[in-house]
């Protein structure tokens, strides 16, 4: 059952990821990206990472991609119009680089991997791994965790400063 589901999600993931790159309308690209994130969440579920699976949907599909869509709609972008020799050349090079990279990584993947130290179960699997992740985050990874909160704060301030339209002094938003 699980391998079939994995194959299904994997095929969906690859297909939608390809559509993200291939489709000319940025809104459609973004929608396919949402779909691919959702199938990725499915794969996380199969890999016993329920917490990450749903956080993936909440963060990526619920927040990041909505932001993307918001920006695309706000800018009201036209379709990509792609023509001209140098674009064709670059596109060819792009696909070739991608294909070479794929070949290389597949060769690496064929080498077979040692399974690593065996444990019967993922820690905390019986109660769901949210608790286990939380404990790890607040103990071993506390410092990085706090750093990311700083990062988010900086990003938030940065985004606001960047997009704030300058108004003449003294004029306030009604």
């Amino acid at each position, binding site marked *: 059952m699980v391998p079939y589901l994995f194959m299904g999600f994997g095929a969906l993931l690859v297909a939608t990821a390809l559509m993200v790159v291939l489709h000319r309308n940025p809104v459609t690209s973004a*929608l396919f990206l949402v779909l691919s994130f959702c199938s990725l969440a499915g794969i996380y579920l199969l890999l016993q990472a*329920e*917490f990450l699976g*749903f956080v993936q949907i*909440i963060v990526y599909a*619920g927040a990041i991609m909505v932001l993307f869509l918001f920006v695309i709609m706000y800018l009201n972008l036209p379709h990509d119009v792609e023509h001209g020799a140098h674009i064709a050349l670059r596109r060819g090079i792009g696909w070739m680089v991608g294909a070479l990279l794929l070949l290389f990584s597949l060769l690496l993947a064929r080498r077979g991997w040692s399974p690593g130290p065996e444990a019967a179960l993922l820690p905390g699997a019986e109660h769901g791994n*949210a*608790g286990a992740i939380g404990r790890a985050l607040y103990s071993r990874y506390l410092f990085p965790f706090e750093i990311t909160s700083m990062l988010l704060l900086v990003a938030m301030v940065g985004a606001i400063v960047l997009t704030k339209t300058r108004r003449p002094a003294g004029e306030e938003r009604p």
Partner: protein
Amino acid sequence: MTALWSNAIFQVALWATVKVAIILGVLLGVVTYLIFAERKICGHMQARTGPNRVGPLGLLQTPLDVVKLLFKEEFIPAQANKVVFHIAPVLAVFPAIVTFSVIPLGPPPMFVVTDVNVGLLVFLAMSSLGVYAITLAGWSSNNKYALLGGLRSAAQMISYELALGLSTIPVILRAGTLSLVGIVDSQAGTYLIPGTKLALPSWGILHWYLVLPFVIFLVCSFAETNRAPFDLPEAEGELVAGFHTEYSSMKWAMFFLGEYFNMIVICSIMITLFFGGWHGPFMDVLGPVFGPLLGLGWFLLKLGVFLFFFIWVRWTFPRLRYDQLMNFGWKVLLPAAIANVLIAAVWLYWRANA
């Protein structure tokens, strides 16, 4: 053949399918009559009677409205993005229905489709997907009113989701689990008010540090379901019909259905988190068969009360303005929710160690 029947996975899948089918069927019926109830209640609030012509007491009004909508002509704007235009109404209904799979409608295992150990996250994930329906509907219609409605809703739902998510954290802290079944279990039984002999049901709302989260959750749930006083995405006074201006026939009805599905879902979650879910008195008296049924009954009763409250509010309040709505969400609800998380965490820690 017998091997298939005794296969554990197959049995789980079979039962899940049966439950899903029952819930879907019941839900559609409930929504139909929820619309009827809304029209009746608002009628009586407005010094009139509401639908009373079709069928006895007007009971056939909404089913026949559905039939009418099915047969109405569908209009698709020429410049619309056809594919997205078709997908958006589906997205309006789908997340709400998915959420139902994790809500404990009665005592498990009978009345729960599946007990996911991150059930609350499922709800949050699905409610965050709900934004797409409205945003995409607004964008794909190629209509300025619809676009404004879509953009408004994207901003509104993202903003209020933060406070919504934060307001559930004290509940999680108290229950110690993300599973909705677990959260309901943590509200079983009664507790004595310290210093008195008065016993109260151990419902979330009856703990002082969960009152503010409940209020925040309630306010945010109005925003999440896009109902008055937060119905800005479809504010008919300003944006004609907002994001569904260009929709007609059954596609329009899907948005309508979605709104009511969402209303039922969010009320169910509210009951689950703060009002003890299916817990209620007299359940242990009735024995193993009728007890759980009574639990379902309690759940439905609470649901009815909340749905009535939603309808009541809608027909009473004016609509907020967009900037006021955003200010309220970011400058009032969000800080209050954060402060409350801290207070609840400190209190629970202190009580656990005291």
